[in-house]
């Protein structure tokens, strides 16, 4: 029977009912500007302060360390550029990042290279785990910032952030982590994890698109990215997006409450992995255990990902791929190439990202549908034809 299964939660998530309800007063009655000194402004400011306090409580930091932004990409840009510009004055003009970062990080680093900064891109192993020995050799007294993601958005590998923080701090460099995929999926307590900056995005955890934040630890100063009025302690101009900030606060509280479901999500993820890797010439991309609880990435040889997505979509399944031919990108995934997946195999990758709302019936439905689609596409692939001929010849 046809179903609708949304298995692309790493791309974006639906806004939850509770989040919408939490935001509604900000549209209907509490629409004031938090900077206004009158009653409308004062009550808006109260809501803003309350949201910030609640977010700080979830993340294990203080309200003063939370800076609201428009999205994860802005947080990434600000953290890296702001730190680079600040540390330049101290003679630190080197940045270390990894080869598997999100483009928001990689392209910011590329832009800084053009502006005279030196950037090192640390490699990863076959599972996508950052090479800590190489990292140790790259970080020096000239390093301003180490920017490494908490968990990878394509293959789901969780990085050894605590060790990375130590390596950065040993040389006096700042440590920033893009935790856009990790927040809500991994227990993050900023009172224990000593990162200097952390970025997160609302729409990956059931808040709307258009809201993110940057955590900047007390005592760390970075340059501004967006100048404006005195909002966010003069660090990020622009009238605060109160409805979405309130929504983000609710979404983060719910994400924390819902962490109890993560073992169940991981069990369903492992069902997908075990069933889909039984298809001949397929393999798991990313780390077998140190991975996001809802993220599956399987490489199917001899077929191309967009074709798979089109067929899955016709069956009511929304998924993603690292193929060059997907969406507007015509490059194979830089993440898959960095873990050593050859080009032709990178084109046949399928990413499924489930949530606590994905049922076992949904998992069954995905499993039932993937194998026939892979077979159908292989039967029209000239690469598969060669494999079949070779296999017949060997018999």
């Amino acid at each position, binding site marked *: 029977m046809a179903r609708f299964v949304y298995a692309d939660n790493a791309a974006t998530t639906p806004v939850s009912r509770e989040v919408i309800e939490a935001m509604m007063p900000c549209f209907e009655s509490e629409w004031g500007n938090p900077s206004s000194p009158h009653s409308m402004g004062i009550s808006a400011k109260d809501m803003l302060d309350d949201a910030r306090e609640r977010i700080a409580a979830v993340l294990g930091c203080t309200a003063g360390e939370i800076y609201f932004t428009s999205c994860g990409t802005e947080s990434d840009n600000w953290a890296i550029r702001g730190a680079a510009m600040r540390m330049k004055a101290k003679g630190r003009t080197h940045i270390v990042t990894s080869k598997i970062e999100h483009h928001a990080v990689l392209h910011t680093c590329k832009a800084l290279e053009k502006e005279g900064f030196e950037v090192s891109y640390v490699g990863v192993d076959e599972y996508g785990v950052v090479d800590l020995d190489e990292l140790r050799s790259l970080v020096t007294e000239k390093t301003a910032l180490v920017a490494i993601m908490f968990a990878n958005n394509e293959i789901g590998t969780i990085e050894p952030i605590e060790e990375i923080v130590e390596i950065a701090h040993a040389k006096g460099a700042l440590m920033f982590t893009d935790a856009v995929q990790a927040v809500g999926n991994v227990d993050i307590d900023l009172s224990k994890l000593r990162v200097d900056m952390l970025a997160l995005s609302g729409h990956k955890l059931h808040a709307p698109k258009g809201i993110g934040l940057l955590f900047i630890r007390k005592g760390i100063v970075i340059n501004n990215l967006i100048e404006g009025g005195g909002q966010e302690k003069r660090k990020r101009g622009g009238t605060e997006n109160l409805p979405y900030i309130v929504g983000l606060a609710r979404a983060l509280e719910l994400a924390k409450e819902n962490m109890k479901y993560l073992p169940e999500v991981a069990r369903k993820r492992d069902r997908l992995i075990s069933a889909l890797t039984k298809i001949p010439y397929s393999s798991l991309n990313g780390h077998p255990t140190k991975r996001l609880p809802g993220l599956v990435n399987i490489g199917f040889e001899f077929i*191309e990902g967009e074709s798979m997505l089109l067929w899955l979509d016709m069956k009511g399944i929304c998924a993603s791929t690292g193929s060059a031919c997907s969406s507007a990108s015509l490059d194979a995934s830089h993440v898959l190439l960095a873990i050593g997946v050859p080009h032709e195999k990178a084109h046949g990758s399928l990413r499924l990202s489930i949530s606590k709302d994905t049922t076992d019936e949904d998992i069954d439905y995905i499993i039932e549908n993937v194998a026939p689609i892979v077979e159908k596409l292989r039967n029209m692939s000239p690469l598969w034809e060669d494999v079949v001929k070779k296999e017949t010849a060997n018999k």
Partner: protein
Amino acid sequence: MKYSEKVMDHFTNPRNVGEIENADGVGVVGNAKCGDIMKMYLKIDENDVITDCKFKTFGCGAAIATSSMATELVKGHTVSEALSLTNSAVVEALDGLPAIKVHCSVLAEEAIKSAVADYYNKIGRPIDFDYDPDHDDDHDHHVDED
């Protein structure tokens, strides 16, 4: 990105998928690095008419649909008519392609030409047309990520 109904029709029900044993001309274009490879098989009679045409394609929806449409457009036609098939004719027959997928139609055109070139080689006819079997065109390298 949205495909036309025609493209989706040719993607879901591709015409002429398969191989031709003892084909008179076989052409392979594209490469796995770019994510598309097309293999075209032609059966040609003594009057230079393409009596059968089949394909196998590794690639995206547009690559499969353009291959399918190209086989439809050359089947039953003469070799010289097949050589005059342009990528824009394939695009038009499919009611258009998204701009970043137009290179797939170029690949389909090249696949036909490459199969005809193979036929010419087999029968000892000089190749009097241009084709690019490697299809190293410059893709627009956009980025669209989560």
